[in-house]
């Protein structure tokens, strides 16, 4: 079956800067799952999201929608693409026009895509979408954006995405601007969309802890490359790439064991980076001479996991373009 979306050897350059380097993956919506893409700023995670959404074209390689190059979609296909794939962005303040009631962001797609045959049907659809994300329609409709909290506004954006009955939602840092106490609620409603409505989700974040809580698979990105990928439980519990290990040990935990500050943490090593070597070599505590000269490929260390580090050289290489083999669908 043709996957909904497929990235084939995509690279994105901005001037001399490579934002994303030779990534291949596909999204097969017959097996819905939440895939988290985690990394620091500049790791390429947002570039990946923008390319999947068709907002930026790749510098090299192709993004295919139902087998068709995204750059060559017909008008009808483009329209279908705009329904199948929905976005939720980071800032729940900037996406609203303060002069319109929040209903506007919900009624506009219903009208533009002829989702409902009557006004009443449209209204019912909107109310159902709001309930699907845990909001009470009577508390939301008719209000202006400033009358609602950041968490409510962000859930309306998720409801708007749900309204389109999409196959895939790309959520780029959907909870980084809302309070810690509300993050759980929003992420739980995303999880429900996958489990109950079969919508696949790409969850872009810098927060490994929420990624662990909500997703099935994880891609850890570091400076335009995939450092580690696989089933979230294994990657978080037993990280195999030194960068993933550093990320996990950097998260302060609620615990009476206070070792967070004493940890040596991020140390610069003597290794000199080269454009051909491993991107992480300058910060790597276990760097070997060859790391400075050769870029490590992904090694398949377990059935559902791969890490791009020469420490795992004994494992078979994961051929470029087969990243999906280590990603698993959500348990049903």
């Amino acid at each position: 079956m043709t996957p909904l979306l497929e990235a084939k050897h995509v690279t994105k350059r901005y001037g001399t800067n490579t934002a994303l380097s030779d990534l291949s993956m596909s999204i097969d919506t017959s097996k819905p799952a939440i895939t988290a893409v985690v990394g620091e700023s500049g790791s390429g995670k947002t570039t990946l999201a923008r390319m999947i959404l068709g907002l930026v074209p790749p510098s090299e390689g192709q993004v295919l929608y139902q087998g068709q190059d995204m750059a060559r979609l017909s008008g009808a296909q483009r329209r279908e693409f705009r329904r199948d794939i929905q976005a939720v962005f980071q800032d729940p303040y900037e996406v609203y026009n303060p002069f319109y009631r929040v209903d506007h962001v919900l009624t506009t797609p219903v009208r533009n895509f002829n989702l409902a045959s009557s006004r009443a049907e449209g209204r019912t659809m909107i109310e159902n979408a709001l309930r699907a994300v845990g909001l009470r329609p009577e508390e939301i409709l008719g209000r202006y954006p400033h009358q609602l909290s950041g968490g409510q506004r962000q859930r309306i954006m998720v409801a708007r995405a749900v309204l389109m009955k999409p196959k895939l939602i790309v959520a780029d840092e959907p909870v980084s601007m809302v309070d810690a106490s509300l993050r759980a609620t929003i992420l739980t409603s995303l999880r429900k969309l996958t489990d109950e409505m079969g919508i696949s989700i790409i969850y872009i974040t810098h927060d490994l802890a929420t990624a662990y809580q909500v997703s099935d698979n994880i891609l850890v990105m570091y400076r335009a490359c995939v450092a580690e990928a696989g089933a979230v439980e294994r990657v978080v519990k037993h990280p195999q790439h030194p960068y993933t290990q550093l990320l996990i040990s950097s998260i302060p935990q609620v615990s009476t064991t206070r070792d967070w500050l004493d940890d040596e943490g991020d140390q610069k090593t003597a290794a000199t980076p080269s454009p051909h070597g491993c991107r992480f070599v300058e910060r790597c505590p276990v760097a070997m001479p060859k790391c400075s000269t050769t870029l490590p490929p992904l090694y398949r260390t377990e059935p559902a996991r791969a890490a791009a580090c020469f420490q795992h050289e004994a494992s078979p290489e994961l051929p470029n373009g087969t990243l999906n083999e280590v990603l698993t669908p959500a348990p049903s």
Partner: protein
Amino acid sequence: MNAILKVEGLKVEFEHPLGAVKAVDDVSFALLPGERLGLAGESGSGKSTMALSILRMIKPPGRITGGRVSLDGIELSALDHEGIRRLRLAGIAMVPQGSMNSLNPFIRIKAQFADAFRDHGLKLTSAELETRVAELLRTVGLPPHVANLYPHELSGGMKQRACIAIAICLRPKVIIADEPTSALDVVVQRQVMETLARVQRDLGCAIILVGHDMGLMAQFVDRLGVMYAGRLVELAPIAEIITRPRHPYTQALISSLPSLEKRGAMQGIPGLAPLLRDLPPGCAFHPRCPQAQARCHTEKPAVREVAPNQQAACHFA
């Protein structure tokens, strides 16, 4: 031990057409020399207003309507405008939220230090300034050439460290850090917090850390105060807060943090933080509280000592 900073019955109100809004409602605590105290709570709980009011930096329509703040025995409300200006930075320094916005983008890092020294009447020759700045930058782990850079030439973590260096340049007794790492990624966050911990030890000053990340609090502070709807609803040593939180809101804040141990353990706090101008009667937390009883709907719980060194404002703590 005598407190270095004492806050007693502090009240801050904001004028509003529908009546005054109490952003800080009768908050008291004492900060010991060298202590690290955390102030946690959701947005709108009053924690940042609290921090600003200690330095008397509340702007209209907000104003301090009651209570006393004293530093090392000196009553701050008795100071005139000039006195309070001299006290800021030299006595109590602030590391603001979003370091990228708090540095002047038009002048070099060195000049931002020069501003601070000049404003506090220190006349330094350019050679002296050079040495002092290099020394301060070294303390926060930045190379000396940073002095000659503009803020936009620094990364987020470097800017936050530069802000810490400015905060300690007059050796204050208290540093107030308002979400100093909220804009940084986790790896850089730990480096910045390590820097803050080190300069605090070297200087022997006390720190108030304002934030909502309970993980960060658990790893950094000695004692934690939890704010809800303008009130300090719990104050206790951090180990007590983690192992035995007395207030249901503290418990909820801890549970809302995503764990790396167990999946599916993250729970949001039901409902929304109340509007300060329209607080529910009784305990402000009762509409969201899983343990609320009839009494909580009518009777506002007072802050009381529930164990030695541990206070909470809950009928059932």
